[in-house]
């Protein structure tokens, strides 16, 4: 069995409209990959049901180092939290290929 390495899974949920911007941020800050899912949701900015054009959310998952995850989270906090529907959370995960994440 291959050894497992600890990394961080950063999950971001935000207005779908922001996806290109947040992804540009991810690239700029050094994330090597991510996974995106269209989602719906409810929060302080009300119900975002994705029923039409600008009304859905997207969920971005990034597996990376703890350090990078916190850097990204802090950046998102500063840049977007005050004006946009957005949440994020971090979790510890194990991966097989430490060099990849």
């Amino acid at each position, binding site marked *: 069995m291959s050894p497992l390495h600890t990394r961080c899974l950063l999950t971001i949920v935000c*207005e779908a*409209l922001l996806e290109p*911007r947040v992804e540009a941020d991810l690239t700029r800050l050094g994330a090597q990959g991510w996974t995106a899912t269209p989602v719906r949701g409810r929060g302080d900015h*009300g119900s975002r049901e*994705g*029923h*039409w*054009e*600008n009304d*859905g959310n997207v969920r971005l998952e990034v597996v990376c180092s703890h350090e990078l995850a916190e850097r990204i989270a802090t950046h998102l906090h500063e840049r977007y939290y*005050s*004006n*946009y529907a957005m949440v994020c959370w971090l979790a510890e995960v194990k991966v097989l290929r430490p060099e990849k994440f």
Partner: protein
Amino acid sequence: MAIDPVVYFFGFGLIAGLLRADLRLPGPVYDALSFLLLLSIGLKGGVELARHGSSELLLQSVAVVGMGVLLPLLAFPVLRGLGRLDRSDAASIAAHYGSVSVGTFAVAVSWLASRGIAHEPYLALFVVLLEVPAIIVGILLARGWQSDLDWRDMGRELFLGRSVLLLGGGLMIGALAGGEALAPLEPVFVDAFKGVLALFLLEMGLIAAARLGPLRQHGLFIVVFAVLWPLFSAGVGILLGHLLGLSPGGVTILATLAASASYIAVPAAMRIALPNANPSLSLAASLGLTFPFNILFGIPLYAEFAQRLGGS
């Protein structure tokens, strides 16, 4: 005369929405409907543009763009002064009402067609021309020239946005190919148009219903504005149309465009350019009130005035 049946579809959607019934078409289907509407309008306009294009049209275009700049400039002080809205909200709403709603345009065209009232068939061009100027004015009103906004990025957003591109692309294809070559495409882009519009309006009814809730939180001013401002800007549209020598049908369309408020392109642009403007306020007004008002009462009214003016 009888109500245009597409309006019943809107009413049905509105009632179903108010009853909180789940009649929603899936997102991809809604997208496909609006895609088809925009492209169809563009194609038809393009065919006619190639047929009737003239130097006169250039003048008309400039004047129409001018109206697109003027209207948000007029709306802004009203929203700031009477409505006591903050700078961003006022600018955002001004941009919404200075721009146009393609759905409202489509209903107006359908309304005229079902009454046999002719109009200059190339007016789809004006829809494209009116989309963007008000957005730029809105951003300038809120942030001024010196702002740190990334205008290159914004420009992409505006001119490569879905509705500008589909209308514009449709216009271009229509003009290049011409009506005869496009005839085999008519079952999808022409014959189906009104059915597609009906389905689209059903959805818009559902969406509008969901927007009426937030309205209550925003007080009376915005309700009054959402109904009275279209009357004023329709007046501007009627005058301009008359000055430009449009037919009564054409004047009706221009008035409808002036009176209509964007609920697709502008909200998206404002969300990026003026993030601290409240999107639910402007959408509640444009989609929850002005859109229904225009398709139920506005269009017949504007047509009435346009015809009286034309007849005199």
